[in-house]
């Protein structure tokens, strides 16, 4: 008879759900993962694939650092290199004022004991990114950063979790979560499942699970847009981002160039559909026109947007529920959660198995939305 209960039920098969399922399985817990589409169908499969510690909010740096250690041995972890390449990520300062802000940021991180971001001058910028406009005076580099192939990475976590016994069920939609004695009862369009512990990794649909649990959150459904060009001659190795204007820019080994930066289209989440805003993509293209003259004749082959979850403070919700024992939240990564996936799954499994973790996750709890007065005196 098929087993409809487990030590842990993970709701949502993005990179976070698959990573948490894998790490729980590695700790000997039995796991059922429920995914309404297929693993990596949404944010985890269609994002820019940036593996970036650069320019992160201080509250998520520890999680990001834990994750980066795993990315650098990703093949040992999931038996697939996930297309991970490490050529650094560079934040380009467009003028002196920009560079001053970069300097202040690096100084602040140094005081806090973080050393992954490094200030670079115009000469070093030109050495790393020869194609960048001559007007840029420098920037910041995070040398261990890089990029990976998102859907492939997510599927690798799924496969490895399944190989260690996790029961991955794709095409099963969770409709409701309710208490059932000592268990949580997860109702789906394919019957119900029982477990004492559930992890809410439902991405842009996570607010519905949280609301079922009496912990409503102000999650915004967003559709960050990306474009990719036909193959161009190789001209840039690191990923480039900007601070004032929106841009994320990288060239893959095959020559294609990915252009993003967080311009938003429209998300229609109940139809798994997004609508692009070509006016904003034109602005995105103008930024590239300014910074990389070599790109002006590049043919754009595709543009798309994924469905993602953003929290009002642009930080994820991560950690145990503020109301219920056995409920854990891991969502709202606000368009920068892909790099965090491997580490967050490991930390979440540690919390589930042991009740605590040494990785600081202060500032990411769900209570910042559900008990605003208590958490922000």
């Amino acid at each position, binding site marked *: 008879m098929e087993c409809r209960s487990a030590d842990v039920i993970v709701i949502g098969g993005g990179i976070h759900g698959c990573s948490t399922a894998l790490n729980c399985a590695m700790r000997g817990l039995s796991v059922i993962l429920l995914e309404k589409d297929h693993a990596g169908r949404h944010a985890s499969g269609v994002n820019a694939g940036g593996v970036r510690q650069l320019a992160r909010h201080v509250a998520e740096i520890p999680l990001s650092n834990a994750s980066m250690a795993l990315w650098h041995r990703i093949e040992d972890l999931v038996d697939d290199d996930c297309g991970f390449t490490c050529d650094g990520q560079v934040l380009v300062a467009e003028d002196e004022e920009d560079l001053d802000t970069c300097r202040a940021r690096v100084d602040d991180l140094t005081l806090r004991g973080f050393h992954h971001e490094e200030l670079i001058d115009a000469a070093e910028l030109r050495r790393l990114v020869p194609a960048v406009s001559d007007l840029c005076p420098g920037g910041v580099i995070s040398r261990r950063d890089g990029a990976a192939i998102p859907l492939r990475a997510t*599927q690798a976590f799924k*496969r490895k979790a399944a190989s260690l016994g996790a029961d991955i069920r794709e095409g099963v939609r969770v409709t409701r979560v309710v208490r059932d004695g000592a268990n949580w009862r997860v109702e789906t369009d394919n019957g119900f499942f029982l477990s004492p512990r559930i992890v809410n990794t439902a991405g842009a649909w996570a607010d519905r699970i949280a609301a079922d649990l009496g912990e409503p959150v102000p999650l915004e459904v967003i559709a960050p847009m990306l474009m990719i060009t036909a193959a161009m001659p190789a001209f840039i190795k690191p990923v480039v981002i900007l601070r004032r204007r929106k841009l994320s820019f990288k060239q893959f080994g095959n020559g294609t160039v990915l252009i993003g930066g967080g311009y938003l289209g429209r998300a229609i989440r109940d139809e798994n559909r997004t609508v692009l805003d*070509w006016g904003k*993509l034109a602005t995105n293209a103008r930024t590239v*026109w300014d910074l990389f003259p070599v790109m002006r004749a590049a043919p754009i082959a595709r543009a798309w947007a994924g469905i993602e979850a953003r929290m009002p403070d642009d930080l994820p919700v991560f950690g145990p529920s503020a109301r219920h024992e056995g409920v854990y939240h891991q969502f709202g990564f606000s368009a920068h959660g892909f790099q965090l996936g491997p580490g967050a799954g490991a930390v979440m499994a540690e919390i589930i198995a042991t009740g605590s973790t040494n990785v600081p996750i202060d500032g990411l709890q769900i209570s910042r939305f559900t008990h605003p007065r208590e958490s922000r005196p």
Partner: protein
Amino acid sequence: MITLTAIDQIAEHYDIAVVGAGPTGLAAAARAAELGLSVLLADENPSPGGQIYRAITTTPVTQRGVLGEDYWKGGALVDRLWPTNTAYAPGCTVWSVAPDEVGGFELGLSLGGQARLVATDQVILATGAQERPFPIPGWTLPGVMTAGAAQIALKASGLVPSGRTVIAGCGPLLYLLAGQLAAAGANIVAVLDTMPRRNWLSALAALPDFLRSPYLAKGLKLMAAARGKLPFRTGVTALAAEGSGKVTGVSVTRGGRTKTIACDALLLHQGVIPGINLSNAAGCAQHFDHVQLCWTPTVDDWFASSIPGIAIAGDGAGIGGAESAALRGELASLDAARRFGRLTPVQRDEMAGPTRIALARSLRGRRFLDLLYRPAGAFLAPPADETIVCRCEEVTAGQIRDTASRLGVTGPNQMKAFLRCGMGPCQGRLCGPTVVELIAQAHGLSPTEVGYYRLRPPVKPITLAELAALPPTEAAVKAVVR
């Protein structure tokens, strides 16, 4: 008809935008304009006609017999447009169709190296058919092309392949093209027919309708002409193009025996399928047609898609041929006028009456042709591992089979992440149907269960410079002013 030659001549807004100026688009645009709607007819080609009537107003081929009498019927469709106010934009690529914020649609257009966003209340996609991809070993060699490509060269420029020419594949168009090329002076050394003989069994049930259809006389004439004059070889079960740097021969398997025919040009054809890239990228629902063996947009009796305001008519909504295409375009326009309130449902139905009768007549016998000319499985899912399936990214059948079974990849969208097939500039036009068949085969599933690529705009590439220079729309300007 007003011909627009520069992108800034296109208005900010039209009642209806018709994409494609083949028989469907010409008829749809003419009817909509006759009913008093403002119409944009955008077409990629330099002159009207689509593929079937390509270059009808400009062809250098003057001997009417070369292209056959049917070809010249296209002239009447173009003539009908002249007295109307249709804004006709040749050389204009529609790279995106998406809903706007006020219940209409935003079209992304590109003309003369400049891009533009234009608003329309309704859209009729008349994007027609494309040739079914026909991957065999060596099909990427220079000298190998599709039969349709050869026909384009003939109609548009009066060119025929030079040297020994072999035509291979399956379907009525194979005979038509062989006849046309021979009449135009090509040296056809073999016509290789891959039609599986057992197709006759399944097609027989549909024979009575076919016997009463307008195809019959036409088809028999074509076949008789081609077979009588040209070296025909039936029962071909495997093909491979040979040569290094250029095709020099084709290896042919018949009755278990393989031999090579020397040639300088190899023309491949395995029938046509709906061109779905624009409707798919626009989000219109589609399904797998198990008779025509292809992905097909889901439309109702008026060719309305799953998205209110977008209709898909003609061969883009299921292969029916040129005559049915024009009639379907007509019906789509009548329903569009009904949506605008220009016609009541009763008026629409009355006006559609004769068209529907003609449509039924033109489609009678279609099922017989569909069943008779179903491609053999070996050409839908190439058995040889080394056969390139995705030409843009050079992905082979063996890689796809291996990735499907070893990594448990169950759909074409997941396959993209591992092999990049479907991610090149053609966005799956040339590999999509084959990738689906290969995955289906590997998992013992039907194409319906495997699904198709989710395609993305721009469905035809535009340059970064074009996009960067995109002028703001009226709506965007107002948003800033407010």
